[in-house]
């Protein structure tokens, strides 16, 4: 037994995330951890592991499913298999802004909770990354401009959309994108607009084409249900209260939206040209992109069909 007056060992939970150490997600998760520590009087500690330092991105979901990590962030971009059906909002051209994404995502909360629960996960909070756009060395203004372009993609969905629009998808590690753009190995790369400044993409790709492939990319904060159940009741409340007091969910969406706006304002200052394709071109692309939706529906079956209906309803379409 511990000597009288000694502190018992604190409960330590781990939260791995893909976000860089200074990125807003990490900042917000750190604030949550600090709040939990404060409210529990040091009885509970949440260790944040940013920049995929604990698990590589693709291994994160299996880790929280298995309970190897108590908390986890589930990224829409890495939904290649398990839980694929929770990503209807991530389908290409489904939403056109962070705001629109948020509106629909929060309405889908019961659906998300239910799907996560079936996998033994407890949904805590719904977050977002900024919108997905295309950096390019030549402007891509119209659907015709896509034709024959070599475009770096990051997953099956982005590969499908590139192919459907007549481009040639190329699989290049995110770390090699800068060089690939600089040396024109590829004509463009799909990724978040907010990468332009920190990764210095503006130096090697002069155009940022705002096609809004996705208005935002979602991230769900989940806990392993077994780990949650093993947590003393009062600590459970402390975690939930800390989330409320740090205003976590609201702040996440606000930060994503701010980051998007800031990037857009900053790009011309960095010497980049912002390309806004005409509405009818985006509409045209959206129609073509239905092919990618069909592929997704085939893979997700009845669950996907229901999810898509819910998503469209939430978007008022």
């Amino acid at each position, binding site marked *: 037994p511990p000597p009288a007056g000694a502190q018992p060992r604190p409960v330590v939970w781990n939260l791995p995330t893909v976000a860089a150490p200074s990125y807003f997600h990490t900042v917000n998760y750190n604030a949550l951890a600090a709040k939990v520590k404060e409210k529990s009087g040091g009885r509970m500690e949440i260790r944040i592991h940013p920049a995929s330092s*604990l698990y590589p991105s693709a291994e994160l979901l299996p880790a929280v499913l298995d309970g190897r990590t108590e908390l986890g962030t589930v990224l829409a971009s890495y939904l290649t298999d398990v839980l694929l059906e929770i990503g209807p909002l991530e389908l290409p051209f489904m939403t056109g802004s962070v705001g629109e994404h948020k509106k629909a995502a929060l309405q889908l909360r019961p659906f998300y909770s239910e799907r996560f629960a079936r996998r033994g996960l407890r949904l805590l909070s719904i977050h977002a990354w900024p919108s997905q756009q295309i950096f390019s060395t030549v402007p891509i203004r119209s659907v015709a401009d896509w034709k024959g372009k070599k475009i770096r993609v990051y997953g099956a969905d982005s590969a499908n959309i590139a192919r459907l629009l007549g481009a040639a998808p190329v699989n290049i590690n995110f770390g090699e994108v800068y060089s690939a753009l600089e040396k*024109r190995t590829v004509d463009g790369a799909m990724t978040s607009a907010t990468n332009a400044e920190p990764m210095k993409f503006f130096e090697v790709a002069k155009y940022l084409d705002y096609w809004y492939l996705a208005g935002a990319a979602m991230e769900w904060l989940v806990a392993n249900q077994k780990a949650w159940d093993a947590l003393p009741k009062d600590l459970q409340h402390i975690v939930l209260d800390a989330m409320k007091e740090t205003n976590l969910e609201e702040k996440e969406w606000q930060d994503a939206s701010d980051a998007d706006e800031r990037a857009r304002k900053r790009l011309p200052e960095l010497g980049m040209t912002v390309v806004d394709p005409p509405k009818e071109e985006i509409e045209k692309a959206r129609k073509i992109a239905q092919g990618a939706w069909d592929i997704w529906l085939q893979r997700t079956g009845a669950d996907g069909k229901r999810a898509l209906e819910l998503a469209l309803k939430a978007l008022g379409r």
Partner: protein
Amino acid sequence: MSESALGGVLVGLMFVLFAAGVEVSIALGVVGMLGLLWLKGFTIGLGVVGSIAWSNASSFSFIAVPLFVFMSGILLHSGIGKGLYTAVARWVSFLPGGLAVASIFSCAIFAAISGSSVATAATIGLIAIPEMERRGYARRLIFGSLAAGGTLGILIPPSIPMIIYGVMTETSIGHLYAAGIVPGVVLALLFAGFVVGYAVLWPDAAPRVAEDRGGLLDKLRSIYEVAPVALLIVVVLGSMYAGIVTPTEAAALGSLASLLLAAAFRRLTWRTLRDAFQATIRTTSMVMLIIIFASIFSHVIALIGAPKALFGLVTGLGLPRWAFFAALFAVLLVIAYALEELSVMIIILPILFPLVTGLGFEPVWFGIIMVLWLEIGLITPPVGLNLFVIQNLMPGTTARDVTLGTTPYVVLMVALVALLFVFPELALWLPRHTAPR
């Protein structure tokens, strides 16, 4: 047992296992696994092993390692690589320790193709070692020049660790690449200078062989012998800088070119292929098993929150800027001796980076410091991947050869770190002035 005590016990146990002669990879894996069992138990704790093994083994960043070793294996076993060295030996015969100097510059040139130090050391070592051994070079000189020369692979762009650093910290990889060039050249010159000095002081360590002397005619004729391999390097390097291929693809292209070259000289036999296979597999399997099992241990270090405690300690001292940096690097140096650093870097960067940049250090500059630290780790015993790579190519090397052979280079690298602290522009000037506008 407290978490920090657990960390200490595991590191201690690791050294015991090394001393007992357990395979390095397995020793690392055993302590990592014990840590997992202690922290999380069998069912939950060990699940991560599968995850780590899979993600490392299937990682695209490591593919260049087998490919470059394969390329070198084909060049060596087809006999084409020998011509290269005969020629180089002729041209550098005037220089004391000429072949070791040539090895270092070969590494520097190859570093411009390869993003991995292990690949650089293995590729150049495979061809250079037999030639240096044949000419009676001292083992410690051979060992040091190749193990240390190989580390240039990650300082001179392209560089896999720079990519990892850039992605993890959101630092421009292009700027990191540019920042590595000047320190890379300086380091190569420092290494070469050391070798020349050593050979002047101990001429027996680098004997001059009659066959390498020769008139201008011999030298000119030797250019012809170099031509095929030089062409190969130009093609691979050129295709990379022209943007036709990415660095990883350059490795494959280099292998293809070496196969075509061997075929053109009618030297592509089944035996050549089989020997090249064997060289490839041995280096790759050994190195990757160490990287994978070391990652398990690093995972444990991350779970117990050791980096935060350790670096918090250094920050808490309230030292002036230079002393803080010196203390920090001293801690890193200890880690460099004890552990496999690439997996450690992934664990410590998220904690270290905000701390260091918060104190006003430049992110790109610190990236170069990290790379130099990794380089030191690659040639410091007991766990230094480049040491193992060269050891495998030179069976019978003693621990004494290894330690004495590489320590001078460690000193030179630490000196470069100090130099970079005093003159950060050494790294930062080039990216500032060449970044595309």
